[in-house]
């Protein structure tokens, strides 16, 4: 600051002598611009409109502009000679907010149809203080729901009110967990934060909503990270098979390195001693076992592959994990055996079950689905490039490679209703992101252009494809008070044992504990062979007895998006139901209608 001629203090740019401080100010300005673009986009958004590009089609262009500003800023910050982790962290947090808090700010009701059934379980536990194992698969893995029932009471806030923000919260937790595990592979802050950045832009799976899998993913990742960072090396091999395995791994390493001298992993110091790490690993793993069916399997596979390829942890850790998981699955077996198969192999399916049969979806629907799949291919290719780059420099670290590949073993054993590949991708992603970061993280000794171009290109390519996966289907994930009210009425007032029918599969599930009054699974007409959507066909399907058909705004958007029913046909069906002597309007809330079969 200088005293000017008029005695006024004058601020001059050159007074910021420290180049680092100037850089921070520039990055802060960049972030403020990105946030400003985001705010403008929020103000001009029309989330209730239907678009083949989902939320991307109803947000003003300033949303994409804000993302581009963030991307350029992050790449610039990661390319600077002096890396400032706080600056990189700020970019990542703002990116997470734009990707996961946008819907929380825009949507009046919780996002995703499949979150609503979680509210029913949480409410049941809150009211009854117990979880009947015969009710649902969720009551056999009740810890997450019990925790939410407790949290909801402590907060004095219903889970429906905080559910939309849970996605932002879990996303931040995931980023902290990814940073934690990557610190066990490298101490270079540039690579660490590039890996976190790539994880965020490539994670379009959308499993971080209020769900047991989001909760268990954080715990599982930290548990695996503790195994990587804190487990001591095993004792030298004694058994024949152990010596054989070590010889094979060593031979593979020699072949891949092609005579180069291997370099040791340059990771950060372990955060805990070996025994303390084991205790916390056990605690986190127990949390995973109590909350989710599939996540423990991923942790077991991670521990087993690390044990073989990286000679840590001890095989007894794997045995203990298998024993704990077997105990908990054993308790749930009476319910599981009657409803599911422990092992099932089925082709992968999309959450959008009707897309394959849609004849005239809106423009952008099919391309969105394809582009989101392209994200996986791109990140795997960049990760492979990272492995090759490391090998050329003599870096042989089997841990991230086996951890990236291991989750896909699960698909061979359990399709998880067709979602197995996506869950496997999610568990592989932290390690794929690290390997990809090894390929594209700017090197401080290179020229600026060479430092930046790789990361920028990958960010734009992967991020662009990933956005379609994250937001491309939002026209079907947006709910209004009408949809929620009708969903609530169905379970609160429909006769126990009555059959519930919906037009489309994206209608919300049970919102409260009354789901226990009626455990008959609802059916969506579009998933029935021949798709009965005319009044005579619907009447034949519903037969007689207590039966209800619900039409609602969310279902109407779904039908329009996939070209399954035109707007005039939908309105005509509504008119015929209202006038039919075989149906009575049992409930209406705005544009949501529940028709009861009266004959």
């Amino acid at each position: 600051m200088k005293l000017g001629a008029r005695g006024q203090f004058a601020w001059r740019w050159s007074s910021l002598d420290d180049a680092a401080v100037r850089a921070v100010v520039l990055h802060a300005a960049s972030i403020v611009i990105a946030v400003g673009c985001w705010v403008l986009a929020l103000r001009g958004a029309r989330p209730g409109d239907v678009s083949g590009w989902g939320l991307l089609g109803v947000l003003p262009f300033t949303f994409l502009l804000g993302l581009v500003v963030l991307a350029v800023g992050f790449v610039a910050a990661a390319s600077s000679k002096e890396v400032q982790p706080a600056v990189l962290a700020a970019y990542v947090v703002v990116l997470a907010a734009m990707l996961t808090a946008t819907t929380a700010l825009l949507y009046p009701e919780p996002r995703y149809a499949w979150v609503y059934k979680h509210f029913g379980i949480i409410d049941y536990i809150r009211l009854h203080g117990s979880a009947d194992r015969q009710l649902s698969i969720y009551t056999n893995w009740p810890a997450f729901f019990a925790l939410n029932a407790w949290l909801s009471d402590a907060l004095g806030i219903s889970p429906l009110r905080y559910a939309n923000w849970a996605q932002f919260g879990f996303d931040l937790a995931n980023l902290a967990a990814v940073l934690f595990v990557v610190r066990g592979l490298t101490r270079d802050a540039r690579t660490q934060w590039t890996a976190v950045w790539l994880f965020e832009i490539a994670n379009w799976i959308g499993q971080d909503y209020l769900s047991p899998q989001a909760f268990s993913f954080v715990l599982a990742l930290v548990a695996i990270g503790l195994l990587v960072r804190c487990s001591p090396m095993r004792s030298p091999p004694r058994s024949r098979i152990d010596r054989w395995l070590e010889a094979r791994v060593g031979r593979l390493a020699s072949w891949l390195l092609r005579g180069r001298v291997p370099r040791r992993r340059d990771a950060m110091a372990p955060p805990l001693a070996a025994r303390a790490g084991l205790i916390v690993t056990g605690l986190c793993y127990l949390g995973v076992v109590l909350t989710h069916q599939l996540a423990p399997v991923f942790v077991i596979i991670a521990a087993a592959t690390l044990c073989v390829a990286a000679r840590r942890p001890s095989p007894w850790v794997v045995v203990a994990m298998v024993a704990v998981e077997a105990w908990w699955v054993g308790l749930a077996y009476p319910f599981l055996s009657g409803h599911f198969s422990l092992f099932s192999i089925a082709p992968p399916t999309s959450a959008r079950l009707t897309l394959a049969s849609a004849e005239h979806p809106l423009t952008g629907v099919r391309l969105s689905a394809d582009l989101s799949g392209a994200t996986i291919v791109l990140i795997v290719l960049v990760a492979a490039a990272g492995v090759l780059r490391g090998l050329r420099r003599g870096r042989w670290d089997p841990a991230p490679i086996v951890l990236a590949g291991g989750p896909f073993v699960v698909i061979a054993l359990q399709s998880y209703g067709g979602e197995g590949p996506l869950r496997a991708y999610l568990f592989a992603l932290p390690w794929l992101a690290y390997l990809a970061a090894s390929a594209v993280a700017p090197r401080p000794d290179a020229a600026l252009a060479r430092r930046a171009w790789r990361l920028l290109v990958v960010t734009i390519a992967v991020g662009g494809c990933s956005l379609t996966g994250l937001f491309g289907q939002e026209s079907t994930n947006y709910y209004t008070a009408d949809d929620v009210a009708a969903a609530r009425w169905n379970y609160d007032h429909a006769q126990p044992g009555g059959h519930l029918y919906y037009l489309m599969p994206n209608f919300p599930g049970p919102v409260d504990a009354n789901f226990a009054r009626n455990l008959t699974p609802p059916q969506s007409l579009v998933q029935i062979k021949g798709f009965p959507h005319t009044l005579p066909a619907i009447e034949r399907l519903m037969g007689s007895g207590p039966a209800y058909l619900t039409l609602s705004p969310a279902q109407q958007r779904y039908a329009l998006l996939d070209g399954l029913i035109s707007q005039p046909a939908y309105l005509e069906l509504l008119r015929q139901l209202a006038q039919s002597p075989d149906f009575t309007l049992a409930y209406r809330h705005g544009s949501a209608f529940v028709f009861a079969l009266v004959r």
Partner: protein
Amino acid sequence: MSSGRRSHLHTALLAVVAVSCVLAPLLTQLRVDSPLRAASVLVLFLLAPGAALLPLIWRSPVGYELALVLATSLAVTALIAQSMLWLGAWNTSAATWLLGVLSLISVAPQLVLRLLGRAGYPAASHLGDG
């Protein structure tokens, strides 16, 4: 971030956790509708158990990372919630008090010692970095 700044940050976070251990159960019991209640409850559930438990199993010169504190806290609270179901003793008010009191028993001495500048406790923390 310098080790001195990290240490100050760690002390500040311990203070916030200690306050939430008292405030959260109290405001919940009194059913006060306030953002302060929500904030203190979230700190109690997400940070307090980890901040209380980790120093008991290892005093590290390196410090505790956010993900570690968070995951430990989530695991502990999930275990407490599951225990209430196992024991058939569903009482969320009592559970909140229990969580607050048990966490405070460990966090309060840590905070006091830090404020008194005693040696032997972690002088640096990674909480500011991650």
